[in-house]
């Protein structure tokens, strides 16, 4: 799919593209969890795991791990800096059979609540009533950010392969159980992130493909991110802003994170497999964005309606777009959002408008944390260069690339640093 708005972005020079990608990555840098937050969360959920395992019985062999965005390094902080952030955890119970009735599902979830209620540590933090598939623990704050943990119990699909790395079923208050594969999804996304991209020899961009090597049990450090993670974070935050816009009639039907993440992951895999040589991450990002809608398949039904499929790469029987058929607002909302995000990116990176305009637009499109990220980057870029006596002089402007031919600018003061 050719995105109209990207025409101008495609035509940028290589150094402009690198600059633009730097801007994009700084939009997302302020949306990450910090290393301290990540390590404290990890300690916290491991402690929950040990507490539960010590209770014995079906819990004895339990295994707890992060699923969802925190497990794959694509989480974004809430727009409202005072609201809590969800941390999705799976509590795998290898020796327990999955519930086959809604009563059993309820019992399982209420039991888990009871066990946590009995704890001195978690007693006043666990919510009394489960959600559809999980129980919720209020965690409190780390560095000013509040967290709560959604703990979803999972059980083997097949008792012959009881490990959490196999297909599982999760308890479901409405449907008794539902098939799932959180570990498999996490593994798929992480392997997509570590796919080799053919970088042009002239390119000074290198991905850190070793970040995801091996089986990474802990929450991945989000300090070093791949292009795919940056794209997903960018899109999710744009979706959050788009959704809360009161004039947006599709707000209630905004695309869900798993759909955005999956389409971006599939598109990224395709770009990697295409063997195309990339000069910079910006072109790769544009290709990923353009490819995303191609992974939604449509089947026209005899009654004239359309069935949409976005397959879970880790569990092909699961269709993330299963509700789109009954609720046409959902595919319409996806289309509207997708059009908006591609137009917005082109508008954000429009040249010759003024850095103040770029910052203002980033605030409208991605929120105030994002705008602060860009602002800090723009301020630091020049200050660092001045400190190193390396501001770049050229006839067209201060390029932000590390042009080797740059002429040093003599140190000076704006009316004296005295």
């Amino acid at each position, binding site marked *: 799919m050719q995105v109209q708005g990207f025409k101008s972005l495609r035509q940028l020079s290589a150094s402009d593209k690198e600059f633009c990608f730097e*801007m994009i990555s700084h939009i997302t840098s302020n949306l990450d969890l910090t290393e301290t937050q990540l390590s404290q969360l990890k300690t916290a959920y491991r402690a929950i795991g040990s507490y539960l395992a010590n209770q014995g019985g079906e819990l004895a062999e339990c295994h707890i791990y992060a699923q969802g965005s925190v497990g794959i390094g694509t989480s974004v902080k809430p727009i409202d800096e005072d609201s809590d952030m969800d941390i999705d955890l799976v509590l795998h119970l290898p020796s327990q059979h999955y519930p086959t009735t809604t009563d059993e599902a309820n019992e399982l979830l209420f039991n888990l609540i009871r066990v946590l209620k009995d704890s001195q540590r978690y007693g006043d933090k666990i919510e009394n009533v489960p959600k559809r598939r999980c129980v919720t623990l209020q965690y409190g704050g780390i560095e000013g950010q509040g967290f709560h943990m959604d703990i979803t119990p999972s059980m083997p699909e097949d008792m012959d392969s009881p490990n959490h790395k196999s297909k599982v079923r999760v308890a479901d208050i409405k449907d008794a159980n539902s098939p799932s594969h959180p570990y498999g999804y996490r593994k798929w996304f992480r392997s997509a992130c570590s796919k080799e991209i053919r970088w042009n020899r002239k390119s000074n961009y290198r991905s850190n493909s070793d970040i995801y090597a091996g089986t990474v049990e802990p929450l991945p450090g989000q300090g070093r991110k791949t292009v795919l993670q940056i794209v997903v974070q960018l899109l999710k935050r744009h979706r959050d802003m788009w959704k809360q816009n009161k004039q947006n009639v599709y707000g209630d039907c905004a695309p869900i994170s798993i759909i955005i993440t999956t389409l971006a992951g599939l598109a990224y895999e395709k770009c990697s497999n295409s063997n195309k040589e990339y000069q910079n991450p910006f072109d790769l990002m544009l290709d990923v964005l353009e490819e995303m809608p191609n992974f939604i398949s449509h089947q026209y039904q005899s009654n004239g309606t359309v069935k949409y499929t976005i397959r879970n790469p880790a569990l092909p029987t699961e269709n993330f777009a299963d509700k789109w058929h009954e609720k046409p607002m959902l595919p319409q909302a996806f289309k509207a959002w997708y059009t908006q995000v591609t137009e917005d990116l082109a508008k954000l990176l429009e040249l010759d*408008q003024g*850095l*103040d305009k770029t*910052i203002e637009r980033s605030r409208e499109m991605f929120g105030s944390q994002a705008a602060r990220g860009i602002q800090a980057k723009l301020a630091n870029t*020049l200050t660092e260069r001045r400190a190193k006596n390396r501001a770049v*002089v050229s006839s067209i402007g201060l390029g932000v690339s590390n042009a080797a031919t740059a002429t040093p600018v003599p140190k000076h003061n*704006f*009316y004296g*640093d005295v």
Partner: protein
Amino acid sequence: MCHHLQRQLNALQKRYHGGKGRILKGKTGLKLEWRQVLQPSRLSREYLILVKWAGLGCIPEVEVLSPNLRDLAGGKRSPHEFFSKENTKPCLMFNSGSSKDWVPSMLIAESIIPWTQEWLWYWELWLSDGEWRGGGVHPGELTIEQYMDQINNSHHQPANKGK
């Protein structure tokens, strides 16, 4: 006198092909005038600037001719410009007594022009949130002429002491 001006003009013409300059007669003698478009970054606006230099003993004076910065800022004046009723005149350096950022042996092409580019970069950031990130000391309500007087006075001070 003229060869100082000519040296600066040659360097400017050599480096910035889009610019235009000349040496002309002013009230107090010959002076250099140089006009060119500057864009601090690709996302930034393009600014037409004018540099005037009246030769040794003077500092180059920079004016932003267009767009009008005061209008873009809704009438506000940034912390680092000289007082001026007309065009914005960025304050780029600290020249006082023996502490000098700029001396006539420096090429305008390699100092004043890139400094103006930096100044415009910080100006755009200032416009976005009112914070001046470029450092330095506020020139207050001084016009560039008043500032020049200060420089010249500080020039003469050591001489007076000598007497």
